């Protein structure tokens, strides 16, 4: 395999790796603040993409994306307020079942609103055939947008959690909920905020990725599974690691196509998930000690 081919595979891997990373970040944010694995995360991505496509008919593209992200954020908040907030000390299993039910509900609503067809946003720059040539490697400009915007999101998120009061309050809730409440932090609002953030990030991911692939009412499910794999791979709760783990999984899948028949691509990600869960459940970048202290 020459260098050009190698790099082309890397680019392919980076493309889907970033998508998985974004979904994983959404998982991590909610997990960090509440200990819940939100299996409706994939649906946030789908909603963002579908709403943006509908709005793009009446608004210019950047405005459509912004409004779509806001709308999905509101949906995330509503879900939390309506379904999660009033539960008293729910067990992990109960929460998982509730979020799976929510994902089914959102999917059916999306089916009724948008029908069964596939949609895609127009490419941000160029069309479906433009590609930038760097040496022997071809990249679609949309891939650069995906990677660029994801990097910005990761940076902003990192800064938010580390330097802003609100971010620190959310981290306090994640570390020790009761102690946080004793400090006067409203744990309930932090939970709502975490859902909103997750939904917003997922929606943004859905918008930037939809020109390359497409969104359909049920495109959330496979994304949620892959995103969950990546979240576990990087260590559940570690947002920054999920970006790296996403790249890793994407590149592994991409190179697997060069040696195995493409049909086994999904086998790779599931095999990795199983291996990690057996060998090192705290994830590649997670600390085994910390993982033991967490409930899940």
């Amino acid at each position, binding site marked *: 395999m020459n260098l050009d081919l190698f790099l082309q595979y890397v680019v*392919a891997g980076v493309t889907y790796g970033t998508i998985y990373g974004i979904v994983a970040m959404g998982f991590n944010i909610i997990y960090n603040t509440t200990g819940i694995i939100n299996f409706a995360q994939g649906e946030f991505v789908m909603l963002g993409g579908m709403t943006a496509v509908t709005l793009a008919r009446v608004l210019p593209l950047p405005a459509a994306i912004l409004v779509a992200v806001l709308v999905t954020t509101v949906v995330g908040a509503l879900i939390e307020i309506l379904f999660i907030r009033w539960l008293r000390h729910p067990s992990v299993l109960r929460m998982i079942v509730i979020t799976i039910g929510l994902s089914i509900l959102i999917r059916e609503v999306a089916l009724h609103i948008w029908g069964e067809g596939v949609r895609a946003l127009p490419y941000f720059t160029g069309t*479906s*055939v433009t590609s930038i040539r760097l040496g022997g490697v*071809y990249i679609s400009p949309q891939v650069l947008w995906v990677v660029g915007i994801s990097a910005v999101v990761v940076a902003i998120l990192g800064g938010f959690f580390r330097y802003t009061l609100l971010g620190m309050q959310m981290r306090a809730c994640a570390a020790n909920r009761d102690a946080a409440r004793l400090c006067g932090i409203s744990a309930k609002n932090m939970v709502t905020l975490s859902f909103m953030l997750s939904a917003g990030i997922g929606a943004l991911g859905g918008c930037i990725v939809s020109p*390359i692939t497409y969104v359909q009412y*049920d495109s959330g499910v496979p*994304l949620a599974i892959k995103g969950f794999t990546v979240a576990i791979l990087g260590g559940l709760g570690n947002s920054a690691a999920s970006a790296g783990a996403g790249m890793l999984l994407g590149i592994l899948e*991409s190179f697997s*196509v060069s040696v195995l028949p493409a049909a086994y*691509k999904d086998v790779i990600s599931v095999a990795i998930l199983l291996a990690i869960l057996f060998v090192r459940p705290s994830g590649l970048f997670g600390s085994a000690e910390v993982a033991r202290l967490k409930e899940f």
Partner: protein
Amino acid sequence: MRGKIGVIIGIVAFALFLGAGVQAAEPIRVGAILAVTGGASFLGGPESRTLEMLVEDTNAKGGIDGHKVELFIMNSEGSPEKAVSFAKQLIEEKKVLAILGPSTSGETMAIKKIADDGQTILLSCAAAEVIVNPVAKWVFKTPQKDSDAVQAIFNQMGRMKITKIGLLSGNTGFGKAGKGQIEKLAPENGITIVANEVYDKASTDLTAEVTKVKAAGAEAILNWSIVPAQSIVIKNARQIGFKGPIFQSHGFGNIKYVEAAGAAAEGVIFPAGRLLVADILPVTNPQRAVLINYKRNYETRCVGEECSTFGGHAYDAFMILKAGIEKSGSTHREKVRDAIENLKGFVGTGGIFNFSPTDHNGLGIDAFELLTVKNGKFDIYNK
């Protein structure tokens, strides 16, 4: 005392129920198993809307030979397992005369034996040749043969002096059947398959697969699939700089696949029924009247949606059933089946059908027209 009254009420209710079923001219019960949602929804959606339209029109004109048609559409979502359970339900509970569909080859093969054993006419809207080869007494299909589609493509490749191709197929029944036909017919047409990849029907990015194909030195790509992922193959192939021609199967016959591929779909070559170019056919073409009529009716009823070859297959299935009932003059399933099996010169959207006991498809390679995409619209391919 209460028990006895209950029994009497039950018997009376049962008698009324039975009585209600007997009417002047018994309705003809027709079932349809279609993938209205799911990965094959570009097939099942138009098919179900076409059938609803045809049944409404037929019933408005008094039904077939005075019998109203009762249509039961079951949404299989493209799943062979659901198709099996719906088929059993339609045959055993609803006792339908015929089942129209399923939309996909995988589902059809799953219910082929069930329909045959259940002596229920099956008019499939799926393309794989294995549906009618070996011939099953009660099983027919309306789309053209995939082996003919492959041959039409190979003929064109011969004209373009292409010998090395990369094959990408979807992991559905249609994709597998097509792959089998392509591998079988390639050697005798002088075509070598230098890369052979199967992709998942729910794939969202296929850059790695097309990179592998390009690296193997393919002169053209042959993409055999019915799901939206086929549009992603086209996009990714053009994005990594693949300049050779891209051939698609007749599973490309819905303008929505072209829209999903955007500018990358320009110049794609594929065989299809003439429905997609009905407006630009020469006036002498025998299919023209039927095609334009269906196209107008469908597009008037489903505003904003262009007709597709898939809706056309459902149109053919229903009209063939109707012709069989009218020709045999009865609704008895054996007679209708015999009438269908001996139908000749039937002008449908897929082509002109000539059924026989050994040919339950009735279409040959001339049912195909080689089409391409020009400015985002389907056009006839000029060599």
